């Protein structure tokens, strides 16, 4: 069974990089969006296995999307990975507190992201 993923990131180059990493990890990329609201709509629509969200995005931040997803019972289990250029312990805590499963500080190693996704897609919460 192929696992699915939705990617939300406002920077097009990093968006592309994450999409490549997801593809390398054997995931089916359902949607790639560039803001928080689109991300939330896409997750509601596709109900993917995984969502990779940048924290600082227009409309809604990754953390806000994360909270909304966790609050929406119709969506079900989605493994959420947050990306952020901020390395503050505070931001990490906030993200994990909002229900994210993992956090990658930017710059992240594509290799490490691929490895995590390859393992993480199989683990059901």
């Amino acid at each position, binding site marked *: 069974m192929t696992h699915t993923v939705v990617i939300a990131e406002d*920077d097009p*180059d*990093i968006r592309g*990089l994450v999409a*490549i990493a997801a593809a390398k990890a054997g995931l089916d990329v359902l949607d790639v969006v560039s803001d928080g609201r689109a991300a939330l709509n896409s997750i509601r629509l596709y109900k993917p296995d995984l969502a990779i969200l940048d924290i*600082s995005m227009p409309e809604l931040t990754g953390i806000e999307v994360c909270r909304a997803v966790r609050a929406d019972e119709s969506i079900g289990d989605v493994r959420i990975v947050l990306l952020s*250029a*901020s*390395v*503050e*312990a*505070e931001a990490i805590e906030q993200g994990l507190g909002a229900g994210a499963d993992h956090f990658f500080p*930017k*710059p*992240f*190693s*594509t*290799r490490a992201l691929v490895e995590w996704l390859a393992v993480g897609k199989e683990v059901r919460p």
Partner: protein
Amino acid sequence: MSTLVRVKAWFAEALDSPSTTVKQAATTAGMLAAIVILYLVPGIEITNAGLAGVGVVLIAGVSILAVIATHVPRLDPVVMIIPAIDIVAIGCFRGGTGGAISPFAALLILPVIWLASGDGRRHVLYATVLTAFALFLPFLIGATEPNGVVDIVRGLFVPLVYAGAAGIVNELARQGRRQLNSIQALADDKEVMLQRTVEFAARLQESELNYRAADRLFRGVWAAVTEQSVVGTDVTGLIDAWNPGATKILGPSADDAQDKMYIFDFHLQEELLDRARELHYPPGETVLNPGFSALVESARLGNSETREWTYVRADGSHVPVQLSVTKRIDDDGETVGYLFVALDVTQAREVARLKDEFVGLISHELRTPLSSILGYLELLRDDEDAPLAPEQLQYLGVAERNAHRLLRLVGDLLFTAQVESGNFPLDSREVELESIIGASLDTARPAASAAGVEVRQELPAEPALVHGDPTRLGQAIDNLMSNAIKFTPRGGAVTIALELTETSAVVSVRDTGMGIPEAEMDKLFSRFFRATTATRNAVPGVGLGLTITKAIITAHRGQMDVTSEEGVGTKFSVTLPRIRVAARV
């Protein structure tokens, strides 16, 4: 001065305080009159020319002596010899001009009065004895025979009468002298008091001038402080001083605030109560407003305290202030109130906030493209379908290394900004310095061997526990190590050592490098500073490492020291408070 005035002055002086000459003048004049009478009046005869001559000569002699004594103050103590000789001389003259029947015995009264006026009752005795001697003189030297008992009685009775007169004169003179003395003493006292009054008045005037100058200065300063609010209160917080700055920051004029409002009326009540709770002032348990007690807690104990508070303006708006509280004391050292000096920090806070925001934004904006660069480079390197040639891999390595360098720089800049704004997160726990040093050695070794620098370690057997953030401490020691390696020429050595004392752990990193010029030592820890030895030798860097290192160490309540000699080497020491194992148990 006219002659008349001069004569008048001389006359007044001569009569008011008679000189020896003036006193003697009476006797001399009497003697001259006697001589004239002797020649003019028939029936008065010289019975003994020798004796009368001795008398005249003696009088002439002592008259000269009197004139001399007038001008020679040194002779004052013996001046009484003059009337004494006068008495003897008149005795001789009397003896030579008829003895008992001589009409000149009366002259004796002149020197007797002078002698009797001398200071002390003994002068009465002298006058009496000398008078008796003068009257008996003719008999004593055998010039005449006493004319029966009458002469004897006269020789004794007359001196006794004279003694009486002398006694009265002596007493009067004594009283006069005493009066004079007391008048003199009073005059002296008056003089001294006058002098003191004059001095006191001068001092008073001087201190009044000083006071006025100080008052003017104070008023000037008070009015000039328009950017800080300075408020004085009594011990209950009732405002009694209010400067223009207070009006500017808080609203009310001095007249509206003084004696009418309390300092705590201008504070955010929640803040005061929170602080009161922090200091364990149970509400209602003190006569004062508990918030006010909290506000002046440190000042009351004699310390000056500066902390941030929120003032509430008369219109209800809030002002963040940095407030220093000190107590006011009276002459006896009793606390009579408090002084509140506040600086409006609204702008400072806004600037700090904008700076943090800016730095955060810049850091984010720089990190995002770097993330792309590094990510895509990694994709290139990991592309299994099209593996790169060794040469291409080498180029890729250079690009990656530089992207990482840029990333570190961004991190350092962000961290420096955090340090400056005081927003500096430390994740502190108990850490073993050996493990941090070990990790730093592992990090440093590849660079050291590439640079041909030997790395040595000197570690004690005992474990060294400190309280700190292992990541930050590691960063600090990494910085020192990488600096030491960068600044040491090929073939040199870098030694990291750990020394322990009872209370502290000292980590030192010393190198055999190019050293730091002495003139630049004090600038070493400033941001973006680079030693001339570094720029001259083209050692790469931007000058943030030591700034960051020092900030980390300071945040750990540690201390950084450096000693260096140009061309010989440099030693950086970090002293951290040590947790003693015994203290932990």
